[in-house]
């Protein structure tokens, strides 16, 4: 692996390749495409949280002015799985806002008006609106055919799945402890809150070939999922990713695309569909509301003897709550000899959850980091020292099985201990809280091509939608590998037909895995350049080296030749075998886990219950920061999302399961004036599985802020408020209760 001191491009902070388009309004996002003859599609949504659909009749809508297509669930002829039923309900609607039918008309107003003409016969059913309701004896079943872990020998249940991790002897471990702390914590549903609503435009030609333009974290997934839902061949669908206005996991799945394609097929015209903000809140996938119990036992010196976590996560209307990652993360930072972790995937009549930045980890780790904070208080230990004493390290076996390669938790904790912000006294009357964050990161499949123009300009073509500056990262890694200046490299995200397969931009995999494909494609170019130079110089390939962007004879090779630059070789490529084209595809292994330490100072107004965040510091192991400004940006953005979740964000439901705050007015994400500067420090413990040591950094940042804020409020108030968000009414009620 390259040492940091040798690096020329990596670690610099150039302007991103797509930057100018994004500051001038030229960049085209999901809703920015309009085509000639285009229709506008709208979706009819369920007014009930739970109801049987007895009949859907779109015929009156189809006959209305301007309407060119109208469809219901029966019109989607592909797989009849949960995804398809979420896109258009079949026999039952399972949450308020669940799509039931769709129309496409010449104007948006005509489409809107036609929705009122669709006749749906519902038989309302009692909704299941909380974990408590869902797991109670005799609970109404969201899905009568759902059996826990598919075990049909047991009665149907709203608990779709149970997952457990066990190690050692949990009872003995707690018995061995001098002190045991436990508590339970509830966190309501939260939304990713990306600013760009979902949008797509589809057009199907007379030969049946469809083109879909949409904002997505993974256009290859849009292609395969849309094809599956429609019963089409993947080869008939081309997906062009627009620029994407935020996703945070929420744009890894599809909602509109099959509807637009189907209605384009039926009408013979392009169909554009965009969600309103209200639809985004009501009918896309937020993350789970959760109920977590955490328990930890330790010796007097702080050594953990046992830890236990019980997690129940709302999946929404279909199975798939992130209990796996929740269980994997909850104790990942620590050496715990005896542990028991159980996760429950619980169906309720709410939207099907989707990934949200480190899905499942913020909630479970909030619970565990709160009990560890209480433990530190009871032991009168510094919270960093307690964590250092138990911190996982290279060779520690993670609760979910594997043994950690080199990881940076201890380095982050030590950096925190040495940080001037930690040494600064807590302001008078304020509180300070600290917590650790973790995300395992993923690798998965990526492809990349590197094309060299005749003047040596480099085009990097890959398939990972750029959600936060990844083109800059790709270009930097290509510059570093090829030894050419960053300015000579253009990085592009290709559509499904112009570049090789890439899995979604998710799991913090893009800079790691797609980056690795780009590096390998550059290495392919270098190998070709060496071969071309050898041909030119009449040497053997083994006698040529690639140094600082030039082919040179290896030391000791007797050849009186001038070095050949990439441009030199490209210019003469026709004489040496044709254009230079490097390729790589891979299934990346060894995504290194990224740990973080966050702390915050807060001031609670004891008369109104409002919490002001005075300061926030985030330290995180990036392995190697390719573009440090965008790494800091991930840390800062994740911190503020986590703080928003901890402070005010929540889905508020009425008794019928109708969300009462489906807009940015009352779903209160942080605004600029709510937040201080977010101080960052990047720790670099290189990931041995990546050529430059990269670890994914995108998700870890959201994990620790929830507990850091909880712990800070607890520090000021002198007592703990277990649940989130720490909204003013909750905090004031808790203060009054203490009095």
């Amino acid at each position, binding site marked *: 692996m390259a040492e940091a001191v040798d690096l020329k491009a990596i670690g610099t902070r150039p302007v991103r390749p797509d930057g100018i388009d994004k500051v001038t309004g030229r960049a085209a996002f999901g809703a920015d495409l309009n085509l000639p003859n285009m229709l506008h599609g709208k979706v009819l949504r369920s007014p009930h949280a739970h109801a049987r659909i007895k009949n859907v009749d779109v015929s009156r809508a189809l006959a209305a002015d301007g309407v060119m297509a109208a469809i219901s669930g029966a019109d989607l002829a592909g797989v009849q799985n949960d995804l398809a039923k979420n896109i258009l309900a079949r026999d039952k609607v399972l949450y308020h806002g669940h799509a039931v039918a769709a129309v496409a008309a010449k104007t948006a107003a005509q489409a809107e008006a036609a929705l009122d003409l669709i006749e749906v016969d519902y038989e309302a059913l009692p909704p299941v609106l909380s974990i408590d309701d869902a797991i109670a004896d005799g609970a109404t079943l969201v899905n009568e055919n759902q059996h826990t872990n598919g075990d049909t020998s047991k009665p149907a249940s709203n608990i779709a799945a149970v997952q457990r991790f066990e190690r050692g002897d949990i009872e003995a471990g707690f018995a061995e402890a001098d002190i045991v702390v436990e508590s339970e914590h509830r966190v309501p549903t939260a939304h990713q809150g990306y600013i760009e609503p979902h949008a797509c435009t589809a057009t199907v030609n007379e030969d049946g070939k469809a083109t879909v333009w949409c904002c997505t974290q993974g256009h290859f997934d849009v292609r395969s999922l849309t094809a599956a839902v429609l019963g089409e061949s993947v080869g008939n669908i081309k997906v062009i990713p627009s620029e994407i206005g935020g996703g945070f996991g929420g744009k890894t799945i599809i909602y509109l695309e099959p509807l637009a394609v189907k209605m384009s097929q039926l009408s013979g015209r392009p169909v554009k569909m965009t969600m309103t903000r209200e639809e985004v809140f009501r009918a896309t996938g937020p993350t789970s509301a959760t109920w977590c119990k955490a328990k930890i036992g330790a010796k007097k010196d702080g050594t953990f003897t046992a830890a236990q976590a019980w997690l129940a996560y709302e999946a929404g209307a279909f199975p798939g709550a992130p209990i796996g990652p929740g269980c994997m993360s909850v104790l990942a930072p620590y050496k715990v000899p005896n542990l028991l972790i159980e996760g429950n995937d619980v169906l309720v009549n709410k939207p099907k959850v989707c990934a949200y930045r480190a899905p499942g980890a913020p909630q479970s780790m909030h619970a565990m980091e709160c009990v560890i904070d209480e433990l530190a208080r009871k032991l009168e230990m510094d919270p960093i020292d307690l964590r250092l004493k138990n911190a996982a390290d290279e060779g520690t076996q993670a609760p979910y099985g594997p043994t950690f390669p080199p990881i940076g938790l201890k380095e982050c904790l030590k950096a925190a201990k040495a940080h001037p912000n930690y040494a600064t006294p807590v302001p008078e009357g304020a509180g300070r809280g600290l917590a650790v964050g973790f995300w395992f990161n993923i690798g998965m499949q990526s492809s990349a091509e590197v094309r060299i123009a005749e003047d040596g300009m480099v085009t990097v073509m890959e398939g990972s939608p750029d959600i936060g500056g990844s083109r800059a990262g790709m270009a930097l890694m290509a510059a570093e590998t090829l030894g050419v200046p960053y300015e000579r490299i253009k990085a592009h995200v290709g559509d499904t037909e112009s570049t090789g397969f890439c899995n979604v931009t998710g799991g913090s995999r893009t800079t790691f895995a797609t980056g690795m494909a780009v590096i390998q494609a550059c290495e392919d170019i270098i190998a070709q350049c060496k071969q071309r130079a050898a041909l030119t110089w009449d040497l053997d390939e083994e006698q040529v080296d690639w140094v600082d962007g030039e082919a040179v004879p290896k030391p000791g090779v007797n050849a009186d030749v001038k070095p050949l630059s990439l441009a030199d070789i490209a210019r003469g490529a026709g004489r040496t075998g044709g254009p230079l084209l490097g390729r790589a595809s891979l299934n990346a292994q060894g995504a290194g886990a990224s740990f973080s330490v966050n702390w915050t100072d807060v001031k609670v107004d004891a008369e109104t219950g409002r919490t002001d965040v005075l300061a926030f510091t985030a330290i995180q192991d990036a392995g190697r920061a390719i573009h440090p400004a965008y790494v800091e940006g991930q840390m800062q953005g994740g911190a503020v999302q986590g703080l928003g979740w901890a402070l005010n964000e929540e889905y508020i439901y009425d008794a019928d399961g109708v969300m009462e705050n489906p807009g940015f*007015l*009352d779903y209160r994400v942080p605004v600029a004036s*709510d937040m201080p500067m977010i101080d960052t420090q990047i720790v670099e413990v290189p990931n041995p599985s990546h050529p430059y040591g990269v670890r994914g950094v995108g998700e870890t940042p959201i994990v620790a802020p929830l507990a850091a804020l909880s712990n800070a409020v607890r520090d000021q108030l002198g007592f703990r408020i277990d649940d989130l968000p720490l909204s003013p009414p909750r905090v004031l009620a808790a203060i009054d209760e203490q009095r």
Partner: protein
Amino acid sequence: MGAFAYLAPTNVEQALSQLAAEDAAGNRAQMLAGGTDVLVQMRSTDKGPRTFVDVKHIAEANEVRVGDDDVFVGAGIASAVLNENDELKALLPGLVEAADLIGSTQIQGRATIGGNLCNSSPAGDTIPALIACGAVCVVASPDGAKKVPTEDFVTGVGTNVLKPTELLVGFQIPRPKGRTADAYLRFIPRTEMDIAVCGAGVALTLDDDGTCTAAKVAIGAVAVTALPVPEAAVALVGTKVDDAALQAAAAAASALAKPITDKRGTVEYRKKVVGVLTRRAGAIARDRAAAR
């Protein structure tokens, strides 16, 4: 089915005749000020067709006149414009603050006090501030000009005394004399952008030795309409507006509040915090008055 239309009268007389014509034709006319509530409602809870009558081009509704006895503030002036009027800010800081609290910079560029009052939300920020400073609504009507005390203007959630043929031109506010000053505070969960969970406006007058000789207190978002709190005023008058007096005023505000529990706050929370705000706003008004 009617259609949408847009009219931009330039004076009150023209506006009244347009309103009358729309009314006679059976069309719904709606005054459009900043549109920050009206346009949101048009896309959500109130989608029907209407004729917008834009108040922003009506000369009289865009005037600010500071007289010896009264201040007139036009109903159609954007909050940001009011906030740039140093004379008004110095005279009626509480009212200007209330206008300035509504929404973002962008909303400020459009939203008006008149629109805030005519929207008649229980949580309208300027309404308690208007009541506290004794504002009287100047209403143009086919029968001539009418004057309606602000506390009598709003009749329920989203309803008010205006007839379809009438329009709100502006506010006549007694010019604060001597050591008189106002203040308005509201509570929101974030620092900006939210609707008031509760609010309190206080205006008071001090004599030379700092004794309160007159006071007016009003609270918002804790009942169907903004409420004057005469008991709170009584608690302040005759005192030095010390902690005990402010506490008594706070208790009176909390006692009068009849809030609901909703997505923005609970009954208990609102009752308690409206008292806190009354106390804090009272202290600000006192300090401002003392500085005059």
